[in-house]
């Protein structure tokens, strides 16, 4: 039982404790705020915000648990997150034919393999397994199944879903497997905490700035809620918050600003790309896994893009 929880992380990395305290502080603050506001102004409808806060609690518990528990639990819980995301995406996608079910099994089986490569820290296998091996294997399995109608669609849709939900998210797990380096001994766990916190905060900031000052739409057809004011305000706030969380990363001052800027833009891209996919399918929210948030996909769509970007920046700058 003692091995299950990684107490060292509190003793050696006081930074991590601070951020975890900060996360729950923000959550408690907003829960209390909405509760009080709801009592003061019973007429105003805060139900959407209350629901959102509820699902943030769930997300925070998942990721904080992933940070402080034993690495094995971290890998299993992140793998489950990939599984749930892939299950949701393949269920709602109208481009997955019923003839593809046998091939879909291979996509699900790829999840444990990919996370195992992350766990043993096999950088080369981890990087090539899905983009090369699965990209060959899935079309082959589709051909073996023998249903040729619309097979091209399936050949492109299934690997893309695998890339978004498994390849993208598994980079978060590989962050945890990164070893300590000179001058930065907080390790991969604090990097995981940093990227998840920054990406989710970026979502919130862009949403809030857009709600408060949004006027000029960027992509009216795809995502009517995305405005230039929201994007610019969100990017600036994210960079400022990221700068103060620099102690979680090995970056220098200039690097952290550039990295936060990149994450903020990538988070925006992930958001609008998944929005377009959803519009194409004709639904607003992707599911009901987290209350008030549509599906789990709505929360992790930006992470699927910012995760790999952040990972490769860190890896190329400090681990090669």
């Amino acid at each position, binding site marked *: 039982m003692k091995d299950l929880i990684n107490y060292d992380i509190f003793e050696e990395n006081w930074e991590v404790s601070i951020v975890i305290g900060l996360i729950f502080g923000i959550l408690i603050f907003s829960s209390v705020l909405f509760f009080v506001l709801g009592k003061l102004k019973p007429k105003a409808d805060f139900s959407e915000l209350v629901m959102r806060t509820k699902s943030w609690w769930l997300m925070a518990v998942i990721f904080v648990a992933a940070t402080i528990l034993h690495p094995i639990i971290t890998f299993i819980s992140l793998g489950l997150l990939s599984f749930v995301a892939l*299950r*949701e995406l393949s*269920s709602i996608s109208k481009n997955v034919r019923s003839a593809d079910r*046998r091939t*879909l099994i291979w996509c*699900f089986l790829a999840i444990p393999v990919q996370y195992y490569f992350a766990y043993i820290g096999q950088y080369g296998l981890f990087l090539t397994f899905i983009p090369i091996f699965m990209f060959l294997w899935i079309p082959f399995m589709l051909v073996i199944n023998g249903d040729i109608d619309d097979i091209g669609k399936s050949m492109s849709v299934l690997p893309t879903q695998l890339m978004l939900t498994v390849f993208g998210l598994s980079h978060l797990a590989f962050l945890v497997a990164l070893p300590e380096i000179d001058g930065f001994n907080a390790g991969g766990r604090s990097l995981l905490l940093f990227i998840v916190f920054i990406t989710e905060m970026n979502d919130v900031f862009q949403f809030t700035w857009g709600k408060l000052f949004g006027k000029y739409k960027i992509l009216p057809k795809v995502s009517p809620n995305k405005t230039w004011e929201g994007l610019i305000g969100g990017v600036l706030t994210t960079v400022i918050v990221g700068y103060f969380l620099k102690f979680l990363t090995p970056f220098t001052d200039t690097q952290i600003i550039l990295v936060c800027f990149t994450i903020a833009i990538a988070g925006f891209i992930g958001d609008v790309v998944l929005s377009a996919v959803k519009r194409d399918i004709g639904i607003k929210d992707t*599911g009901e896994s987290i209350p008030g948030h549509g599906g789990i996909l709505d929360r992790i769509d930006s992470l699927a893009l910012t995760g790999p970007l952040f990972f490769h920046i860190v890896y190329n700058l400090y681990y090669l």
Partner: protein
Amino acid sequence: MRRFLLWLIYRVIMRFLLKLFAGISIKDKENIIHNGASIIVANHNSHLDTITIMSFIPTKQLIKTHPVAAGYYFGKTNSKKRLSNYFINALLIPRGRPKKGENKPDPIEMMLEVLDRGHSLILFPEGSRGEPEVMQDFKWGIGLILQARPEIPFIPIYLKGLGKVLPKGDPVPVPHLSKITCGKPTLPISKDPAEIVTQVHNSIVSLKNNY
């Protein structure tokens, strides 16, 4: 012992597996809880349909609930019969009613007998599973039962997605999001079996459209 087993199988193990593979969610759960005899009617696409409905019924009620199943499929051998009786609580009926003068058990009589004991039935009026997400025509049985016992309510249930998790003719389950929607317990409005069948059919279709 049996009650504990049913609780463990349906409320714990099956519920967990369904959550994992089907991400099952339920709408208007309170409608399924019913004291006394009732008939749960649902659309049928997969073997998981019965298990899903059973996993949401409280154990006290579950022990008095019998899914109606085709005898020739689930009761082929004696051991299979015993297993279905013990673990699924199934009521095995023959397909089709006996012709005049034939000395065979009447499925309608068998079902009425269970209802008269104060127990409940789970019935799939489509008869067999068919294509995923496609509803077939309803059989007459439900109309005849409700005609004979108009005081017993039926609970319509619409199941979505389970036919994609485990469809007919493919033993390998694939994860797919599913949902179960429960309608209010309803009494038949007519005495005519054909009209009752239409009423039951419409109540399930309206759950489908309100999805």
